[in-house]
């Protein structure tokens, strides 16, 4: 698409400076727009910035985040900034920011992402109660060099992974599949096996949803090359024995028998849940919210990056759990949609 001279005057507000926001900003910069990234935390990169390595190529998450940061240096990035109010003014949108300024933009992109399910809400898994229970995010933090007393200096011989923590669970309020946890669990199990070669690892799953490119290879590799055990059955309860080890109970539904195992560390695969903070803004702009709390696209097939409102666009996990490549592709797609929209004005 050709760069439009008039684009230079056009502001596009990007709400959320995760990888979706950054990638969209990068694309919009390329098209000659002036994207403004509004990020509530003190840094961009979102959840991916906390991650260590990404499947399926095990590439460092840092690389992509840093590349995106570098390539969006030309965009205005407002950190530690929240949006107090939003409204429509003619063809434009005005956003009242927490820094007291008002931003006027021709289009608004919601790249507000997701929240990780709060693992402590699944009380039976004992996160925050039993010493040796941690989450996928805790583990990535540890992979990134942040110390963790659950692992540092401990003799780790037995590790468990619980899939679907807070996802596909109506009792936890999230019926949707969080999509990336199966492959993340397998990735982390392999990484743990590499760190603790003598450890035995069990993954407790309900279904294994390995839909993406090379995911199945990961699965076969985890079984064949790393000897990771997969038990089809959801963990029912977790307790602690007198030695401080975690006792996990589940049913091995393939064997039709209850199983229990004591572990040195248990990792809970917290799922992606909707970012509830964005609901207020969505309400002000009368955007649809799906039953699962994610924002509603105009339709889920042809225009997933478009809202029902002219000039408001979506990218990434704001509309539902997404993988990194899906998020990036949606961000570029949204940038093009924004360009088409603004060009038509």
């Amino acid at each position, binding site marked *: 698409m050709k760069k439009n001279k008039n684009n230079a005057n056009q502001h596009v507000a990007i709400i959320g400076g995760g990888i979706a926001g950054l990638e969209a900003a990068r694309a919009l910069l390329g098209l000659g727009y002036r994207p403004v990234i509004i990020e509530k935390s003190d840094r961009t990169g979102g959840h991916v910035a906390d991650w260590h390595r990404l499947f399926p190529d095990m590439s460092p998450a840092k690389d992509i985040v840093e590349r995106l940061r570098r390539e969006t240096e030309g965009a205005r990035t407002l950190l530690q900034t929240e949006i107090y109010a939003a409204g429509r003014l003619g063809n434009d949108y005005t956003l009242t920011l927490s820094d007291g300024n008002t931003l006027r933009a021709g289009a608004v992109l919601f790249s507000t992402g997701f929240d990780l399910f709060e693992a402590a809400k699944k*009380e039976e898994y004992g996160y*925050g*109660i*039993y010493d040796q229970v941690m989450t996928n995010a805790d583990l990535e933090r540890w992979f990134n060099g942040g110390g963790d007393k659950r692992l540092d200096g401990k003799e780790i011989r037995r590790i468990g992974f619980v899939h679907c923590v807070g996802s596909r669970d109506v009792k936890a309020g999230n019926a949707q599949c969080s999509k990336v946890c199966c492959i993340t669990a397998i990735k982390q199990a392999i990484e743990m096996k590499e760190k603790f070669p003598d450890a035995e690892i069990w993954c407790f799953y309900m279904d294994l949803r390995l839909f993406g490119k090379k995911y199945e290879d990961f699965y076969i590799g985890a079984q064949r090359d790393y000897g990771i055990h997969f038990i089809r059955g959801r963990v029912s309860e977790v307790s602690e*024995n007198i030695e401080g080890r975690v006792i996990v109970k589940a049913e091995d539904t393939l064997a039709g028998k209850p199983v229990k195992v004591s572990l040195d560390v248990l990792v809970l695969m917290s799922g992606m849940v909707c970012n509830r903070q964005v609901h207020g803004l969505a309400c002000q702009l009368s955007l649809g919210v799906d039953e699962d709390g994610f924002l509603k696209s105009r339709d889920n097939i042809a225009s997933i990056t478009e809202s029902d409102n002219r000039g408001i666009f979506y990218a990434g996990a704001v509309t539902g759990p997404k993988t990194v490549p899906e998020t990036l592709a949606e961000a570029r797609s949204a940038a093009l949609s924004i360009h088409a929209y603004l060009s038509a004005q």
Partner: protein
Amino acid sequence: MIYKGKQKIWSDYQKEIPDDHWFYVRSCIRQSFFPGSERYFLGICRDMLGKDIHETEHHTTCGGIAYHSDTIPQETAMTIVARQFALMTEAGYKNLVASCITSFGNYTETLETWREFPELEARIRENLWKACRREFEKPEYVAHASDLVYKFRGEIAERAKYHLVDKETGEPLRIVEHIGCHYSKMFPHKGVGGAEYPCVLSGMAEAWGGKVIDYPERRHCCGFGFRQYLVQANRGYSVSNTHKKFESMEPYHPDVIITNCPGCPYFLDRWQYVIAEQTGKTYGRNGFGIPVLTYEELAGLVLGIDPWDLGLQIHQVAVEPLLDKIGIEYDPAKKYLGLNEKEIMKPGLPHVLRCC
């Protein structure tokens, strides 16, 4: 164990418990199994705390045992419950307190069902009217008696004569708390502390100086399970269940088990004898078992009531090692003297489990 984590959960599951004016419904079986418990509950509430607690001789079973044993349908059980509500309404009370966990569960389940299916409530009202020409108002509040004791645990602690500590070492006693399944497993928000980490008993134990043990099979059923025990052919399951719990708590060397259900203390107590006979194994020190007390009995001990007045001699597992450890004074000679020092018969002694 991260104690703070538990405290957070406990704070999420606190329920408001009315201060006074209760309609008390007794348990079918507790009066014979733990004859002192209900009496001292009323004693503590009325005499010590000066509360208004009313009970009536017209109260019957809540139907819970029959319901959970699949011998009566739910409608029948609900109609029986409705009759208890009618008694309460007639007596002019709005807060119901149940002595029995199954009753508590039964009342809660009935009320929750009616909330979901109002037409069912209408039918039950009709049934009750047809059956005994009674009408009722739903209680504003349903509590279990242990909720009240939990609420007043501080008052009891203030008046305590003994604390749950080893008098020799000053160490807190290691206490296993066992919550009846129907207390909060069905409706976590109806129990103090929720279902996973209830604090109704642990709160009492800690308030009175003890230390609660969180062992792996803490959540497990005592083994009663209604049909598991009531059908004789299934009793193996029942005792196996109990055995599993004891095996799990054994490494922690608990001093006492406290419970808030009629069935649990009975089975945790009596099955220790059966397990000892079957396997030769006992779980307390020196061949004794682990004493199993109701929370009222424990409160009674803390308040300095004579163990034999509390009916502790009725337990299978001897409580003397526990009494000695706390330093509670008792007269061994009076163990088998009943009310007014009347001789009640001495039981025969088991072969394996040490009882004196």
